[in-house]
């Protein structure tokens, strides 16, 4: 294992310290907890948004704490859901009377830990609700699994729901918008190479020199299948085809795009992918209202990328284009 770290047991702690120092105008830490909240609590009452998950997905989620997006984020151990007491602290800290919405990625552990935190906060009289993001089309959604995984599309849920919350809308309204995004966003990823969880000390999986994994999850969970490396255009074709097969998009439809790097993939390659995605969509008469490209939901140093497509209507488009000011996403 070759990493710029001190000791594996301290990676989350030291990362959080560095993050707060770098972005003190945006975020501060709740003393004694792995919870980052806005440096300045919004003055006017708004529904507070909290997300979180295992660490190793930076800038998710704390990088999106700030005006127009999240109010708080909890950092679990690497690739491990945060514990209920941590989530509970975040909820207590950000609540300002209009209720709290938790944005959870669909993993058994995340859902259980966040649900336990909801039970704790509810017992305190705080109004808390949740939405569960499940945008990954790679994995089968059937009654026999716990449903699809939540991956990079979660960032678009943060962006749009955050903009809605900023308008002062009440909790049911904010939740409605979050669910609308979730129902309209689909993603799929692939991986060229593995990543190493610091505490594990060795790669989560091994791919042969010429091998790629299609449908890889953001924790190195195996995807749908392995195959021989093909060209960027061929891989992109396959991923977009799988995504579109699950969306009802007609000519003239507007979408938002997120070409997300998993950590070790250069922007050069992401742009090459984006070029192909745009061409496919253009051919189908689908218009791209906004493209995000870069590392938004990473998997440590994993090489690979994911594509997320969000079907927009006028409401979602307006909220997507609204201002946001956070460490990892700034738009005016």
């Amino acid at each position, binding site marked *: 294992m070759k990493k710029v770290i001190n000791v594996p047991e301290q990676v989350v702690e030291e990362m959080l310290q560095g993050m707060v120092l770098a972005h003190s105008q945006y975020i501060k830490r709740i003393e004694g907890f792995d919870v980052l909240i806005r440096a300045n609590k919004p003055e006017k009452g708004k529904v507070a948004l909290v997300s979180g998950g*295992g660490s190793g997905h930076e800038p998710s989620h704390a990088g999106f704490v700030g005006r127009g997006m999240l109010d708080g984020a909890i950092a*679990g*151990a*690497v*690739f*491990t*859901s*945060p*514990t*209920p*007491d*941590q989530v509970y602290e975040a909820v207590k800290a950000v609540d300002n009377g209009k209720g709290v919405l938790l944005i959870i990625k669909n*993993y*058994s*552990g995340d859902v*259980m*830990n966040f649900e*336990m935190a909801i039970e704790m906060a509810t017992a305190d009289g705080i109004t808390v609700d949740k939405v569960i993001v499940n945008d990954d089309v790679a*994995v*089968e959604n059937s009654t*026999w*699994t*716990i449903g699809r*995984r939540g991956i990079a599309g979660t960032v678009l849920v943060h962006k749009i729901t955050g903009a809605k919350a900023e308008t002062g809308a009440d909790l049911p309204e904010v939740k409605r918008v979050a669910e609308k995004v979730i129902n309209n966003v689909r993603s799929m990823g692939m991986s060229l190479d593995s990543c190493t*969880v610091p*505490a*594990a000390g060795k790669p*989560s*999986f091994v791919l042969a020199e010429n091998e790629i994994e299609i449908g890889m*999850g953001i*924790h*190195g*969970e*195996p995807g749908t299948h392995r195959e021989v490396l093909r060209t960027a255009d061929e891989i992109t074709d396959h991923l977009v085809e799988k995504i579109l097969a699950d969306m009802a998009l007609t000519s003239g439809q507007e979408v938002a795009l997120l070409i997300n790097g998993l950590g070790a993939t250069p922007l050069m390659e992401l742009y090459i992918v984006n070029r192909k995605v745009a061409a496919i969509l253009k051919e189908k008469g689908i218009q791209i209202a906004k493209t995000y490209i870069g590392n938004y939901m990473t998997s440590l140093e994993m090489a690979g990328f994911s594509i997320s497509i969000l079907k927009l209507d006028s409401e979602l488009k307006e909220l997507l284009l609204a201002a946001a000011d956070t460490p990892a996403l700034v738009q005016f």
Partner: protein
Amino acid sequence: MGTYVYEVMANVGEAITRNKQMLTDLDAAIGDGDHGINMARGFEAVHSKMQAMEAEIDIGKVMKTVGMTLISSVGGAAGPLYGTAFLRAAGPSQQKTQVDVETAGLMLGAAITGIKERGKAIRGEKTMLDALEPAYDAFMEGAKDGKSLIACLEVACEAAQQGVEYTKTIVATKGRASYLGERSRGHQDPGATSSYIMLKALLEFLRR
């Protein structure tokens, strides 16, 4: 007797720590490769808490502390599941300073019910329940036959071990391995394995 409960938990924790790598490797094959790391971190936290409770003789209180500690230190799915299990086991053992066959059966039963409720899972989905439920059935069978606590735990451990073997033959439908579908077949479930390790550590301690 106080140190007794403390020692039992220390022994269970040591067994988990000893098998940290194996549990993590099992998880890497079909999950996200952190089960051993998370469980070891949890039981290290339990260990520190236990040192402060060395004189505690109320088994229920110890179970509750173990549960709360696992919930706040393990994370992932295993934290809420095992944490809930120990919290529930605290019920039947409340104000008890010794555990007989009947109480142990009640504790195990309550723990399993907690896991099922928290995880919304049933037996046969390639989870810890595939080790724990057969273990419970065997334990209760032994109890009905008037076996001793150690004898009941012996049959329970055997059943749990068979349950772990059984998880290799089935496809996961709960937990992160469920995303693999058919690809999860052939792999041993890490949660079932850690459950078996804990039961076995308990038995080994009582045998001494």
